[in-house]
């Protein structure tokens, strides 16, 4: 069997559903693939390691991909795991902020991703505000705690399928402003990247086939798929939060993981350039492909 070494972006969570299910249901094995997965804690590491040839495939984010390409990392996107943004601006449901305009003079927490200020700027612009009207505070790993405890009035970088449920479980329900509705072009939240020199490697086509099959299985049999997902690490994955997040993530998995919408990438690349996050917006086929 061909070995594929996948670096996740973060600890295993429902966002990785198709990967885990494909592993557990044996779809990878069906494709004669032997897949191993590693969970890092720093999402910026996996693409670098793939670019350095230390791993075959990594999970990354589309905005980051544009920056990575801009910095010269030899990466190519070969698949999509989650095809819509998950990122959102979250506030307390019963808090003072009812619309983006209410953010004026408030503190906004973020977890450094390198992309948060661009996103916020676009969202604020739409409502006639600028970054100078708010105070940005890096709260790193404490997005929901800092919001609940009142250290900040809103957080950007919260995942709608995750942080919202988290807050709800803690008894402080939140409200999300979806970035794609507030002036940020739609993008793929989770993508799969490989080293550019492996472009066209047949293994990845088989990989995407397995992934597609897993996604179909998830959509068709959500409860069975949940069981399958949890069976990967029963001690750690079977939690209330994961269960809720699972339900909210189902609809967001890319049904055609291999499919590539060039125009969408083009549009988002231009947005990144406009925001000053990248110096150039190269042609899409230089950094994204179907396997």
């Amino acid at each position, binding site marked *: 069997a061909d070995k594929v070494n996948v670096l996740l972006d973060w600890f295993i969570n429902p966002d990785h559903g198709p990967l885990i299910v494909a592993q557990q249901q044996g779809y990878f094995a069906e494709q004669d693939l032997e897949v191993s997965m590693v969970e890092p*804690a720093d999402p910026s*590491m996996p693409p670098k*390691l793939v670019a*350095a040839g230390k791993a075959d495939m990594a999970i990354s984010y589309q905005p980051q991909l544009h920056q990575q390409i801009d910095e010269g990392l030899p990466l190519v996107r070969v698949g999509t795991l989650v095809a819509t943004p998950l990122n959102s601006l979250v506030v307390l449901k019963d808090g003072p902020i009812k619309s983006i305009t209410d953010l004026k003079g408030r503190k906004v927490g973020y977890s450094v991703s390198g992309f948060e200020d661009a996103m916020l700027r676009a969202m604020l612009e739409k409502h006639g505000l600028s970054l100078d009207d708010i105070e940005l505070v890096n709260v790193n790993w404490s997005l*929901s*705690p800092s919001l*609940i*405890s009142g250290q900040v009035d809103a957080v950007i970088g919260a995942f709608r399928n995750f942080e919202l449920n988290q807050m709800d*479980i803690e008894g402080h329900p939140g409200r999300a402003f979806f970035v794609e509705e507030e002036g940020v072009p739609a993008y793929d939240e989770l993508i799969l990247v490989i080293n550019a020199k492996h472009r066209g490697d047949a293994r990845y086509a088989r990989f995407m086939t397995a992934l597609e099959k897993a996604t179909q299985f998830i959509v068709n049999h959500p409860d069975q798929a949940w069981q399958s997902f949890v069976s990967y690490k029963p001690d750690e994955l079977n939690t209330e939060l994961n269960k809720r997040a699972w339900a909210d993530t189902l609809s967001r998995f890319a049904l055609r993981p291999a499919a590539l919408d060039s125009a969408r990438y083009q549009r988002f690349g231009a947005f990144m350039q406009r925001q000053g996050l990248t110096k150039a917006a190269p042609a899409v086929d230089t950094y994204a492909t179907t396997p």
Partner: protein
Amino acid sequence: MAAIARPLCIALGLTLLWQCIVWVTGAPKFILPGPGLVIDALLDQLPLLLRHAGVTLAEILLGLTFGVILGLFSALSLITWGGLRRWLMPVLVISQAIPVFALAPVLMLWLGYGMASKIAMATLIIYFPVTAACFDGLRRTPTNYLKLARTLGASWQAQLIQIRLPAALPAFGSGLRVAASVAPIGAVVGEWVGSSTGLGYLMLNANARMQVDLMFAALLVLALIAVSLYFLIDWLARLLVPWQSDTLNTPLSGSGRNR
């Protein structure tokens, strides 16, 4: 009796303090869960915790071993070659000043995501305090001992091993103690940067999932490991220098023990 009662009392006292902090500050349970919750989680997830604790313990012990050996060796080299020292000391300090986190990607690149990189990390963190302490001890050998050794015709190796080293053992002991207390941090930080096992991984993972009680349970286990390690090393360090007078229990006045 007291040997068992004291740790128990301390544990109880700390638990109480903890509970009081929770009560007084009204910290919500996703920030600082009370001891009850944490102990629940601890008992619930004991097998999971023990499995991960085993990995971390192994990393700590290996890191400690390598760090101490390397540190001792470096200190000996530094003291031996005056030239080397003047050039190497700043390098060592710089190496220490670079947060291991920053080195982590490079380490990962070379050593991969396995145990090796975590041990390397713990070693790196332990290395400097041991080196600094030993070096400090070695350079403070009473001059007269060295003069004596010279008239006795001791080679530099003999001076180093038989005079400077024993004279530096108390300082080495201090270094060991600090090393023992930072070793767990080294291993955990290593696991944070990249790993799928170990208490560090478990903590970060639990933290990300808002299972703060599990995270604190892992923290508890880690603290237990750290404390045991420290007192073990402390005891060893004391054994190392039987000739050293410990004036801890010297009375402030009075005249000796009475039969």
